[in-house]
């Protein structure tokens, strides 16, 4: 019995199976960002009508400091950078897979909000994604997003003109930095297919009320953090999302929001990654535009 107990104690103390790092699925195989020339899989294909002038697209690097753990992360800005000091900017935070190229069509779509290049759009590759240095982590998401805000602030952006848009995993830094602002306080929060928490994932899968701590040490909790957000909130989610259920993830996040204004877009027939396509690009752009301009 003593041997058995010793074995159990050793196993528990040496427990190494945590799913924290598995939340991230970066692709670091690229040598350069290809954007329009990218031939890999993208979640949506965009018609030529949404093409943007190369002169208004810049890929560059930022320094992100995570409590001394500095990483050079990549970013792409779409729009006239001279207007950052006077106009609205959308900060786009992508999901957990791939790298910026994978989300390029989504970024272009947002850059067509209002009109072509009406608003500037900034997107980043989190540390460990694409060509960005470092290793992905929950705290890294927040630090990297804040680094993007610092860059925008240095360019003259003020909080009242910052709109933050988080897709899937990107809903975590978007919600966190709106609820607990650092460099800038986003004036509007937009979430597409957000997840409530890792605990919901576990409970959906097991059918039981098991605590999230049984599988990970992640503290991402959009369902609770959203309650701290006062800023206007836009939520869009595919009704047929088979990855992050609209019922157990999106609806919970939306219900917990208690701020000054919210709008919900439940897109019939859409799955996790094809909301703009199923909704229709123009309908999607119209909805985003109306919210950004309201």
């Amino acid at each position, binding site marked *: 019995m003593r041997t058995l107990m010793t074995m159990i104690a050793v196993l*528990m103390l040496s427990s190494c199976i945590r799913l924290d790092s598995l939340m991230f699925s970066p692709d670091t195989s690229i040598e350069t960002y290809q954007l329009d020339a990218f031939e890999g899989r993208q979640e949506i294909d965009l018609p030529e009508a949404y093409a943007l002038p190369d002169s208004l697209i810049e890929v560059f690097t930022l320094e992100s400091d995570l409590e001394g753990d500095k990483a050079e992360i990549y970013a792409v800005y779409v729009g006239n950078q001279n207007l950052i000091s006077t106009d609205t900017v959308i900060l786009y935070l992508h999901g957990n897979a791939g790298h910026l190229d994978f989300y390029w069509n989504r970024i272009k779509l947002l850059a067509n909000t209002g009109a072509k290049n009406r608003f500037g759009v900034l997107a980043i590759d989190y540390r460990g994604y694409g060509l960005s240095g470092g290793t992905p982590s929950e705290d890294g998401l927040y630090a990297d997003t804040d680094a993007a805000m610092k860059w925008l602030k240095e360019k003259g952006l003020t909080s009242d003109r910052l709109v933050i848009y988080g897709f899937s995993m990107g809903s975590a830094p978007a919600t966190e930095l709106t609820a607990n602002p650092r460099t800038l306080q986003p004036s509007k929060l937009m979430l597409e297919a957000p997840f409530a928490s890792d605990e919901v994932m576990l409970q959906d899968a097991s059918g039981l*009320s*098991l*605590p999230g701590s049984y599988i990970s040490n992640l503290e991402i909790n959009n369902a609770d953090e959203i309650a701290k957000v006062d800023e206007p909130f836009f939520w869009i989610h595919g009704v047929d999302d088979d990855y992050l259920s609209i019922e157990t993830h999106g609806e919970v996040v939306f219900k917990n929001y208690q701020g000054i204004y919210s709008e919900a877009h439940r897109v019939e027939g859409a799955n996790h990654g094809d909301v703009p396509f199923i909704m229709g690009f123009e309908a999607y752009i119209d909805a985003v535009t109306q919210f950004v301009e309201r």
Partner: protein
Amino acid sequence: MGIIRTTVILGCLAFATACAPARVIKPLEKGEKQIGANLGGAMINYGGAPIPLPLTSINYLQGLDTGLTLSAALHTTDILFGVMHAEAGLGIKAYQTKSEKFGVTISPSMNLMYDIWEQNFSAYPQLDALCYWQYAEKPNLFYGGLGSWVELNKVKAHNEVQTNELLPYIMVGHQFNRPKWTFTTEAKYLGFQHDNRDLVPDYIGPSHYGALGLYFGISRRLIK
């Protein structure tokens, strides 16, 4: 999102319902002791191939009295996650023919879980009822039955109402008994009332409901 889908599965299913085969099929003789190990779990699509989750547990059985067997088990996969998942129960002879070739066993048990990370504790009662049929002179047997985990919590994450009060399953299996060793193969159909399409794990279940499970067990009699 495909990669995260397959990785999260491994964690989630470590704690999925009925992650082990039936513990007591035919109650042991008084004083008889048995230790065993089990492997298996719900079937999922993994990289396009159907596989049973490789969940493991070890167990101990002891015949307390005629028709009454104590069972205890540790879910070793869960331990690797830093979660102590212990299970204790009884196997009770509810009915048996005079020839002892056919019988019914009822097994109430309790699952207790505790994690070292945030010290969260969970308790889930479980009840199995199965009948067995010893089909040959050697004590090999077929068995089948049903069971359920019982959800005691009324709320789940973020104070949402927990609507799953029971997580039932049906099972069929076979035990190949040798003088000292027993080999068990069991199939389960878990959570058959739940649509499995909007879940992270790609469970394999008929018409997208529930999950089929496959389990293997080996045990050795210690003393009689």
